[in-house]
């Protein structure tokens, strides 16, 4: 800082570099009085800027805390009245002011679980095809097209689901499932009831479509992070392409793949519009895959505006939002820890 800078090397000529501008002997001399002041201002700006960005950075932690405080405050009437029973009651009755979150927690977990069952094999297949099978010229553009699935807004998925998928499920898929798998002893209950189209299964299928880009892109990154020599070693032992993928690549990338799956789960749990438009919106515990149901997110979207400000009804819905917030934060923390480890492995190798 004490060294006089060469004016010609100053990348910002004519601007204050915040440096003591001890003038070179034969150049036009800047105001000697002004220099210390300019330096002081420069230092002052420097610490102000550091303070500003640090405060904003800590604002992220404050925002996370504020979420919990504000939601708890909004849920206060319900928290006071029901206490822990809110988490174990399976009745949701706005008329008699009895509220329990169980049907929606089950609806949320059930739809997300079925969505994972469908989406994980497909996403893994997509990721394997893009990294291990496809010729290089194809994998780039194809990856881009799969990512476009993530660009379609949720409400458009819901609209398409309601107009195209729901009738297809009602008329073809669901009777077909009932007639085949539903005949297996013990499974009749799972596929029981009249297929209506707007039900748990349909919204799970929509969710699966929506989380495929998330899971497949993180899986692809994990597979790309597997070092070349893993594959070469397996191939040199005479393994076929599939055996190489299975033993040398997938096992190596397993923690990243699990992270990707949990990340997809986090997305499915909180997905709102598409589910709201296809799940049938019944505030009961679903009896089969063909029952109408409700997730926490769809409950909020459907019923929030009909609850009066400050009422117990509204408090109960906000408490349900708090439950959803807690579940998704937990799931995301686990996913980020797993995915973060993969990236560290990648950086270390």
């Amino acid at each position, binding site marked *: 800082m004490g060294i006089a800078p060469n004016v010609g090397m100053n990348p910002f000529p004519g601007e204050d570099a915040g440096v003591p501008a001890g003038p070179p002997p034969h150049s036009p001399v800047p105001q000697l009085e002004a220099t210390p002041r300019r330096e002081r201002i420069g230092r002052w700006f420097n610490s102000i800027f550091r303070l500003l960005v640090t405060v904003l950075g800590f604002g992220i932690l404050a925002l996370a805390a504020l979420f919990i405080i504000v939601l708890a405050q909004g849920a206060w009437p319900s928290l006071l009245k029901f206490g822990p029973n809110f988490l174990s009651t399976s009745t949701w009755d706005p008329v008699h002011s009895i509220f329990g979150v169980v049907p929606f927690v089950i609806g949320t977990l059930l739809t997300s679980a079925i969505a994972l069952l469908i989406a994980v094999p497909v*996403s893994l297949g997509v990721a394997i095809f893009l990294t291990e099978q496809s010729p290089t010229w194809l994998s780039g553009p194809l990856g881009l097209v799969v990512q476009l699935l993530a660009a379609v807004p949720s409400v458009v998925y819901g609209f398409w689901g309601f107009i195209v998928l729901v009738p297809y499920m009602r008329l073809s898929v669901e009777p077909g499932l009932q007639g085949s798998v539903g005949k297996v002893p013990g499974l009749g209950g799972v596929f029981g009831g009249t297929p209506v189209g707007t039900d748990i299964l349909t919204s799970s299928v929509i969710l699966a479509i929506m989380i495929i880009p998330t899971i497949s892109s993180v899986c692809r990154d994990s597979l790309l992070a597997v070092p070349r020599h893993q594959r070469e070693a397996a191939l040199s032992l005479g393994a076929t392409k599939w055996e190489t993928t299975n033993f040398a690549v997938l096992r190596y990338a397993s923690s990243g793949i699990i992270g990707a799956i949990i990340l997809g789960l986090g997305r499915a749990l909180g997905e709102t519009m598409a589910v709201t438009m296809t799940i049938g919106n019944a505030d009961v515990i679903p009896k089969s895959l063909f029952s109408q149901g409700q997730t926490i997110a769809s409950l*909020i979207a459907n019923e929030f505006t009909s609850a009066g400000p400050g009422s117990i009804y509204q408090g109960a819905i906000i408490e349900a939002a708090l439950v959803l917030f807690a579940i998704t934060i937990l799931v995301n923390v686990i996913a980020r820890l797993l995915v973060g480890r993969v990236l560290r492995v990648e950086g270390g190798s």
Partner: protein
Amino acid sequence: MAFDRVARRRWKSHLFAGLTLLCVVAALIPLTSIVWTAFDRGAPALSVGFFTQPLPAPCGSAQTHCSYGGVGPYIEGTLVLIALSSLIAIPIGVLIGIYLSEYGRRGIGRVISFFTDVLTGVPSIVVGIFVYTLTLDYILKTGGNPENVYSALSGATALAIIMLPIVARTTEEALRAVPDSVREAALALGIPKHRTTLRIVLTAALPAVLTGALLGVMRVGGEAAPLLFTAFNNPLGYTGVTQPAGALPTMIYNLYQTPYANWQADAWASALVLVLIMVILSVASQIVFTRVRRRISGGQ
């Protein structure tokens, strides 16, 4: 015998290769169907007037002549909401990214970076409830009318909260990709740190930072859930920051069960427009992003 085994293993390998290709095809069927359906059902409503006219009068099946009108006010509302939320989220997000990359590389900075990642996973409907509760609380404390809880400003705030962690994290990644030698060279010239950060590091990473901002805009552009209880709905589009505001995604949600053919067509055309905008933004951002990443890593 051994030959059979080899043949079987090879056959199995081909089978799995075929299965992975099948997965790619399966993943692309919904996208094709969505674009096709939206085009098929929305095309009648697409005209110049679609982008400027308000919604037409509903048209029942008994009527012979239907006007399609348009969704001009909702397009206006969407653009204003995106602009307002970008105005809030992009500067703050970039500054947080600067903190994470330049000032908080160790200790608590790592924790904040981790929480920023986690915040990207908060469901958008929960963000909507959060902003609604915050707004209602503010209105009750200042003695206002609870009826005024819905406004363009609270809608933009909800969208900004969703954008913020995305912008912050992509900015952090973009700045980290700038080699340390650049910072050291600048500091060695006696340039103070804030100036090094803003004028040299940020400038070098600008294309990647802008891509991050674009990703943020893409994430909120199609959102309906956080707007349901914040911006609510307004058939006139945008009429002021303290007034409710309409947007394309919430309009589609409000019309999806409508029995009127011309409204259905308008909703489909809106869906098509939304999807096309998102697809263009998505392709643009990914192309820019790979090019930038290649340039940065190639320059090292």
